[in-house]
């Protein structure tokens, strides 16, 4: 049951465009009237909310945000700045590094847990106990432990994706229908064969899902780590850079348009990486797309 | 009938003639003649616009179903019989022709999709009991939703009907907790609570084992004898069709069209001893070649199950 019934796809597209245009318009107008949501223009709204008992200071002051036109202008100016593209590269490198490490360690670990019951019994409860600790909470401990700043950030990045990947791998391996195993054994498969030809391909879809979600988490952690280490707290250091740092720097330097430019850039970067992964995933699991 | 050779002949298929009531026997008729639930399907066409081009699922199909009759539709999987049921129930539209119920038009070229309603209730192949409701809550769903009965009255009626169908004891269990045979019966009772004109059954016993199936057949007949609702029953099992039905329509593979119509002149009420009776075997022999021919065609074209 879903909402994607028959209907002209052109109409859907048009509706999407309309709604985005409307939001952009509202944003533009709101940003230009400096006191939207915090001043005379919205007095009745604030009065009613105040009467209902809400703290009106909790409402966002959209007026303080930069307008879309300003953002575009700023972005056009930056496109020629080498530093901007260097930030892209740095972030991408960090993300790839942490993500690859998480895959390289996480997939075998997850498979081991799924295949070997003793290993599962020993490691999984520990894993589940450590998992609720947000990766960013590991930053100070990580800095204390690892020799360089870069390594400590990479470790935290690794952690973020690692949990997701392992959970997905274990879940995927467990969900493989037991009849596949029975069929293979009845045809004379050895344990290694079972692993290579049943478990591995059977877990592949879950690995892909875990990878895509893990990629998103990696971006979150990298951006956060860049912000934290680049400024804003005492966990500082000289190695900064990257898009997170770019955003923070823009904030500190007062150029609010650049903040939004940075946000959109990261959004695009994250989206592109996820899509690449999804395409790769589809390549690796051709049987799924032929439903 | 001569034995047909085990090969698919493209040319000059034998003309299948309908099998009427044999001389010396009487047509089976429901006791208290019901007056509602007569379906007339006239020249219905259904074309799907698929990815690989248009597929004609049903082409010029005409069927006449009398009120209170158990009408069985037999054909290989994927031949389009479910499409027919969906058209009657109002889940799909039709591309041509007309379907009427008790003289009133359900759908035609002016209004291609029949309205959905509780006068034609469907029992689905894999079951559609709501898993988040107990069996009893499932059964009272229809009348309560339509505000035809208060909840208390609906519960009373439901308990009675479930007891009639041999389902006392499972009222407060969830569907997942009971066997599939029980689930089917609950679903049928749920349908009958709405006093429908037609009961549409889409291969409901397909997933059951043969032993459970035979018991379910008798259970269905018992329910039928009490309620006399028109039953439109789709199956791929010829024996099931002959055992249950007043009429059996053998359909061709895509496009779907009645190949031959068999009138089952074994009197009601029937029980499982009918299965080994001589007349039953004769009727089965008369129709099985037709069914087998269509099955071969479907097999060779590798139809994906509908």
């Amino acid at each position, binding site marked *: 049951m879903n909402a994607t019934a028959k209907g002209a796809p052109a109409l859907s597209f048009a509706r999407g465009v309309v709604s985005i245009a409307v939001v952009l318009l509202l944003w533009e107008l709101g940003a230009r009237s400096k006191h939207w949501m915090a001043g005379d223009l919205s007095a009745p709204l604030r009065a009613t909310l105040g009467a209902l008992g809400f703290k009106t200071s909790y409402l966002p002051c959209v007026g303080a945000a930069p307008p879309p036109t300003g953002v575009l202008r700023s972005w056009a100016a930056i496109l020629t700045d080498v530093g901007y593209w260097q930030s892209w590269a740095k972030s991408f490198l960090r993300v790839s590094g942490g993500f690859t490490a998480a895959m390289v360690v996480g997939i075998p670990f997850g498979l081991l847990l799924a295949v070997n019951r003793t290993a599962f019994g020993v490691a999984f409860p520990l894993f589940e106990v450590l998992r609720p600790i947000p990766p960013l909470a590991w930053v100070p401990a990580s800095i204390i432990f690892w020799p360089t700043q870069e390594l400590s950030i990479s470790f935290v990045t690794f952690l973020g994706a690692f949990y997701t990947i392992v959970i997905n791998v274990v879940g995927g391996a467990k969900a493989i229908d037991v009849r596949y195993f029975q069929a293979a054994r009845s045809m004379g498969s050895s344990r290694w064969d079972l692993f290579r030809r049943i478990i591995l391909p059977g877990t592949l879809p879950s690995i892909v899902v875990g990878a895509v979600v893990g990629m998103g988490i990696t971006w979150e952690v990298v951006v956060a780590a860049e912000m934290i280490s680049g400024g804003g707290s005492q966990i500082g250091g000289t190695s900064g850079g990257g898009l997170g740092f770019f955003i923070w720097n823009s904030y500190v330097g007062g150029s609010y348009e650049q903040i939004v430019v940075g946000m959109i850039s990261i959004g*695009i970067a994250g989206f592109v990486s996820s899509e690449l992964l999804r395409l790769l995933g589809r390549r690796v699991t051709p049987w799924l797309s032929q439903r | 009938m001569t034995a047909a050779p085990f090969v698919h002949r493209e040319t000059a298929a034998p003309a299948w003639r309908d099998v009427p009531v044999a001389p010396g026997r009487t047509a089976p008729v429901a006791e208290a003649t019901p007056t509602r639930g007569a379906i007339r399907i006239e020249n219905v066409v259904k074309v799907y616009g698929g990815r690989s081009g248009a597929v004609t699922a049903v082409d010029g199909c005409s069927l006449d179903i009398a009120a209170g009759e158990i009408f069985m539709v037999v054909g290989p999987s994927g031949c389009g019989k479910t499409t027919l049921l969906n058209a009657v129930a109002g889940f799909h539209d039709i591309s041509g022709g007309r379907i009427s119920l008790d003289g009133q038009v359900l759908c035609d070229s002016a209004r291609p999709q029949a309205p959905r309603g509780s006068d034609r209730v469907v029992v689905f192949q894999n079951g559609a009991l709501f898993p988040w409701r107990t069996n009893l809550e499932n059964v009272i769903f229809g009348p309560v939703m339509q505000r035809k009965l208060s909840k208390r009255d609906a519960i009373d009626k439901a308990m009675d009907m479930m007891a009639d169908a041999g389902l006392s*004891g499972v009222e407060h269990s969830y569907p997942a907790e009971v066997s599939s045979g029980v689930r089917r019966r609950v679903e049928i009772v749920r349908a009958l609570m709405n006093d429908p004109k037609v009961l549409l059954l889409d291969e409901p016993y397909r997933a059951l084992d043969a032993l459970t199936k035979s018991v379910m057949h008798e259970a269905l007949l018992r329910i039928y004898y009490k309620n006399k609702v028109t039953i439109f029953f789709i199956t791929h099992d010829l024996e099931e069709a002959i055992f249950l039905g007043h009429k059996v329509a053998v359909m061709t593979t895509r496009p779907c069209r009645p190949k031959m119509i068999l009138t089952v002149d074994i009197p009601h009420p029937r029980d499982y001893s009918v299965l080994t009776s001589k007349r039953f075997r004769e009727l089965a022999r008369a129709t099985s070649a037709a069914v087998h021919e269509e099955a071969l065609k479907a097999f060779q074209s590798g139809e994906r199950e509908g």
Partner: protein
Amino acid sequence: MSAGQTPAAGGGRHRRGAALTLHRASAWFRSSRPYLMLTGFGLFLGGWYLAVEVWKLPRFAEMPGLTVVVKEWLSKDPTYGLSLYTPEYYQHIGRSVWRVAQAFTLATVFGVPLGLLLGWSKRFRDYVFPLFELLRPIPVLAWVPLAIVMFVASESAVIYLAFLASFFATALNAMLGVESIDAHYVRAAECLGASRAQVFRHVILPGALPFIFTGLQISVGVAWFSLVAAEMVSGQYGLGYVINTSYSTVRYPTIIIGMITLGVVGYVTSAMVRVVGDLLMQWRVRELALRGQS
């Protein structure tokens, strides 16, 4: 199969409620699982202890040792200021929990209806989903500076960030929940005479509930994730703030205490959501139990 008999699924006896829990608990104790679990913990804690305090490995030179942390946590007069006995500890926990609660509630109140509508109405989906998907890839923490700019009170900025992450997870899962409902259920309901509104309330809503609750568990986890980051960057009070300042004021054992507390609190909140879900969806619990899981 005679009429009226309830066929026994899996054992012949129907255990309900407390009896079922007790039975499962005793089965768990009798298996080897608790011992393996303890082995795992033991290896981890033992390794930590040995690496820092016994072998004194160079990499672990500055790490606080296990005994140090435990002593600190349990002492009535902690050297570094935070232990189970200090009121500030609970103030920080309370602050963080309260923030997450607000963010989670807002995200659920806004996210669930939005997600349900996105799944149910094609029109709505056409208008809203592109916007949704454009905003979603932006990492929540990239919003930090903008949030600080837009929200006058920094408290609401922190809550907003936690809210954002939760909101997307909840709405997406609610939408997936609606899409996962077998079309046959909707058709059956329509056959039985339900109006569109009734189908929504009696089929879509309960049918999507399992997915919604999975989404809510994820949402709680994500809320904690964002909250901690936000607190580390721009907060006063709160566990993220504690961890941050403990590092800068060189109170290393407190860092570990903060991390462990975060883990425990995060787990408890997630478990609370799961328990509420189980209470609301008895049918699902039983279905899973029959399949040999849960």
